[in-house]
């Protein structure tokens, strides 16, 4: 996309048309992944665009327009989540800051409780439905959800995510680690519900999860 790069005067209407409309698809996709609801995603985008128009004078660098819009969108989203929690429309989820919160591995769980045949790890990834993955993302605490959506689904770099969420890059790293761990735990529950895992403690190779690595580099 060819966004004019100027930090001086520019025509606001032109900016709205050349910046907002070409990014509408991206804004909507992020909104949909965050809210997991068409209706809420459309409301979130509309509110974001309205606020962007009101605050267009604060946009100084047009090359950062996407970051600026996504920052408004995530702020509106977080604010809406806080309101819903106050009104008890959504449950308050306590964020687990324990180190164990970032330590669940779906791979290790499947190796330990894996299916009896084939390659259970790959089977699980292949068989999971888009809807199940999106539900698992939607079940994450919103701070983790935003980090996962921006990094894993939309492919933003840590530095960009830090700027969008207005947090240090270290916070992006820890939110991603904890968010991925929770996401993998949720996906594991789906795998269990589908019956893609078998007896505990016996993997497909008859080895336990605790068996040490044989590469000599451990």
């Amino acid at each position, binding site marked *: 996309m060819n966004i004019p790069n100027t930090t001086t005067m520019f025509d*606001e*209407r032109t900016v*709205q*048309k050349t910046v*907002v*409309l070409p990014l*509408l*698809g991206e*804004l*909507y*996709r992020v909104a*949909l*992944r965050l809210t997991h609801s*068409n209706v809420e995603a*459309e409301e979130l*985008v*509309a509110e974001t*665009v*309205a606020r962007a*128009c*009101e605050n*267009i004078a604060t946009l100084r660098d047009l090359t950062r327009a996407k970051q600026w819009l996504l920052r408004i969108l995530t702020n509106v989203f977080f604010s809406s989540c806080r309101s819903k929690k106050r009104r008890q429309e959504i449950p308050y989820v306590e964020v687990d800051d324990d180190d164990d919160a970032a330590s669940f*591995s*779906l*791979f*290790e769980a499947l190796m330990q409780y894996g299916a009896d045949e084939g390659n259970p*790890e*790959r089977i699980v*990834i292949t068989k*999971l439905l*888009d809807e199940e*993955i*999106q539900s698992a*993302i939607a079940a994450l605490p919103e701070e983790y959800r935003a980090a*996962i959506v921006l*990094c*894993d*689904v939309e*492919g933003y*770099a*840590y530095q960009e995510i830090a700027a969008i969420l207005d947090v240090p890059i270290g916070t992006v*790293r820890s939110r*991603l*680690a904890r968010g*991925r761990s929770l996401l*993998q735990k949720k996906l594991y529950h789906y795998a269990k519900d589908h019956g893609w895992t078998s007896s505990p403690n016996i993997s497909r190779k008859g080895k336990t999860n605790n068996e040490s*690595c*044989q*590469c000599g*580099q*451990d």
Partner: protein
Amino acid sequence: MNHASVDKISCRQALALVAEYLDKELGQLERAQLEQHIELCRKCFDRFEFERLLKARLTQLQRVEPSEPLRKRVELILEKF
């Protein structure tokens, strides 16, 4: 970077690098250290491949486009300002 010239790392160190490798956030040295490790360690290679596939699965979630009513609504908001 020549893998022979980098220091070997343990499985624990290697697994700690996997996520940032897949996110393309590692420097050249750490990338080379992880690549060297998974070339030699089957278990870490399997874990690496699993995490790679899972990340790819998230990236490949169906790409949806905004509806026409939303596009029109946004154009109306833009017109008002």
